[in-house]
């Protein structure tokens, strides 16, 4: 009755400790292999090769212009002393450790020890840190740059509401250059804003041969009849009708009206890039603008557009999920091994279905949407097709695995009553399927809504459309 516990005889080594150590000294891991610690040897060899290979690749990336191993490494070492030096040192330690480890492995009683793998993992981690360009210093010092963006995400309402605006404009003609009779500033009309420019002709700023800016004619503007105590912007309209906010020494020229709605401002006739053909007399215009908000708050254009697209997105996800469920349910029965293992024919249907599903699932919805857009054009419908295809494949797999995981007892019991296959599915399989079906379907809707954002980016409609 009593069975004595006999430990399994450890596999002996082909070579002695020193030989193994020597072998590992030449090729890392070879000693372990000779000691018949196959996996250990392969791991050490593979790790050593990968670490050195990755290190060489990073060194070349750090010193792209150098040739020759030594030159590359010394340049790379100069640029990233801790990284290159650290990994080189680590690789050296690993090499020595591997020699000692081979010596140990040759002796069955001294086997085991996983610390060498900790060193390997640490070296890979160090390489990964550099390869993925992690920079904690930058992350800390440039943290303030996050705020403007983050605050817009967390508090988007400034862009979400707006008011109607009303612009009051008064203009005066400016002739370039001064030739013949200069135009008059328009005569003031009582009760309406007007500006008087002096002079009404002159030269624009321009670039000389040395690309230095030569200032144009100074211009004095006087305005009256504007709304009091309000910012007034000075605009310029050139001879081809382009309007732009005038800058003087880099700053926009804005002026505040006084308590009776008058202002005075000095500026210089601005720089315009003139085509060589622009010869002769041109008529420009200087403008004073006051922009005031009127009426109550209202949702801004972007907000309305976003809301529209959001609704589109949710329904896009919903439709794709519904279509996905409708098609996935029958397919999932074909992809469930326990239902399809009855005969060779059904089993081959099972394998065929599984293969097709795997292929479909491995193609990203991003690709599907491009295909669908080619078919039905850009827009939400293309997005629905893409998500539906992917949902069918994903849900079929989840459903069929749920079917495979059901309790077979009731199936057996229903079969034993003389029920047909369909009846068996209806009474033994479907009742057990309902909870996983519901939870997988809701989960899929979640995924589809989220995914439709990305889908929109490549033309599948929805909120993602706005990101383009």
């Amino acid at each position, binding site marked *: *009755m009593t069975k004595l516990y006999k430990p399994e005889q450890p596999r002996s080594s082909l070579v002695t400790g020193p030989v193994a150590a020597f072998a590992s000294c030449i090729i890392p891991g070879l000693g372990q292999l000779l000691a018949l610690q196959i996996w250990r040897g392969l791991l050490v060899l593979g790790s050593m090769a990968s670490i050195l290979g990755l290190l060489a690749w990073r060194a070349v990336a750090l010193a792209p212009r150098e040739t020759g191993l030594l030159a590359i490494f010394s340049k790379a070492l100069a640029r990233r002393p801790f990284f290159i030096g650290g990994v080189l040192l680590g690789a050296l330690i690993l090499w020595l450790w591997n020699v000692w480890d081979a010596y140990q492995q040759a002796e069955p009683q001294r086997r085991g020890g996983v610390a060498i793998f900790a060193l390997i993992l640490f070296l890979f981690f160090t390489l990964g840190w550099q390869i993925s360009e992690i920079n904690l210093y930058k992350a800390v010092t440039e943290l303030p740059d996050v705020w403007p963006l983050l605050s817009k995400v967390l508090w988007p309402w400034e862009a979400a509401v707006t008011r109607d605006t009303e612009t009051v404009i008064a203009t005066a003609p400016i002739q370039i250059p001064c030739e013949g009779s200069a135009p008059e500033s328009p005569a003031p009309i009582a009760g309406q804003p007007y500006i008087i420019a002096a002079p009404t002709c002159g030269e624009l700023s321009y670039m000389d041969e040395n690309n230095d800016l030569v200032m144009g004619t100074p211009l004095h503007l006087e305005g009256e009849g504007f709304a009091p105590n309000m910012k007034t912007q000075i605009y310029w309209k050139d001879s081809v009708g382009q309007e732009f906010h005038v800058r003087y020494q880099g700053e926009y020229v804005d002026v505040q009206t006084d308590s009776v709605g008058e202002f005075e401002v000095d500026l210089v006739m601005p720089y315009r890039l003139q085509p060589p053909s622009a010869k002769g007399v041109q008529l420009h215009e200087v403008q004073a603008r006051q922009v005031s908000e009127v009426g109550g708050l209202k949702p801004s254009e972007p907000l309305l557009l976003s809301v529209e697209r959001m609704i589109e997105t949710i329904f896009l996800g919903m439709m794709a999920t519904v279509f996905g469920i409708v098609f996935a349910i029958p397919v999932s029965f074909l992809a469930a091994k326990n239902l399809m293992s009855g005969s060779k024919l059904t089993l081959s249907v099972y394998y065929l279905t599984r293969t097709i599903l795997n292929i479909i699932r491995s193609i990203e919805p991003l690709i599907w949407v491009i295909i669908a857009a080619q078919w039905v054009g850009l827009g939400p419908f293309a997005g629905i097709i893409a998500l539906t295809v992917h949902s069918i494949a994903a849900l079929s797999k989840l459903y069929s695995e749920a079917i495979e995981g059901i*309790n077979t*007892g*009731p199936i*057996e*019991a*229903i*079969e*034993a*009553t*003389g*029920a*047909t296959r*369909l*009846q068996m599915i*209806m*009474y*033994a399989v479907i*009742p*057990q399927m*309902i*909870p996983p079906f519901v939870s997988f379907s809701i989960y899929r809707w979640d995924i589809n809504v989220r995914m439709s954002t990305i889908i929109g980016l490549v033309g599948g409609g929805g909120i993602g459309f706005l990101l383009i």
Partner: protein
Amino acid sequence: MLEIKNLTKVYADGTVALRDVSFKVEDGEFLIIIGLSGSGKSTLLRCINRLVEPTTGQILWDGQDITAADQTELRHIRRKIGMIFQQFNLVNRSNVLTNVLTGRLGYVKQRQSLLHRFPQADRELAFKALDRLGIRDQAYKRADELSGGQQQRVGIARALMQEPHIILADEPVASLDPVLAHSILEHLEVLNQEEEITVLCSLHYIDLVQRYASRVIGLRDGEIVYHGSREDIRRMTDAEFKNIYGQEAVRVGGGLEGSVGGSDDKTI
């Protein structure tokens, strides 16, 4: 009469579950099959309604060869053979009434049944069956809300709905306490005596075997190693016992009304 002739079952992995098993069951018998776990009891019962396909051999029921039946014939045979299980095998999420009504699936029109529609007569039959087993008030509860003993009674009600000539019971009381075990077997006994339903039942507890069996078959490693009447069981010798349960098995409590325990890996 049910006649099993040279029945052999070899599973796909090469396990020989039954080895040339032959015996006869007269109508109205209460045949109990004993044997260790893995001795082939479940396989034997499942071969009779072909939940497990026999490899070779014949099963003749009133002259008809069950092993040769095609799918339609098989379904017609199956609906006359009720089956109850150790794990009850109810559809947990369906209510008791639905579970009982599934016993009629072999009789009703498929199209109707797929819409969960059953004839009124069947519903009345279901309530009668539930009444008979004393669980009528549980009819609209979910099956998994019931206790083990109640669930097994639902299982019997389901089998009863088939108006069976034979009931196969695969360790019907192994998941139940001794008191419930007796009550379940009493139900089977009543069906056996009043309706003359033949019962084939596998059991572990020798005292229950002695109490209920009209005849006993012992299986070991897929072969019949014991054959006896109810009286024979009471007189079972240690040699016979060890022949069924193996040389290491220890008999606890002796013969009459005794229960049997085994060594550490042979619980009986």
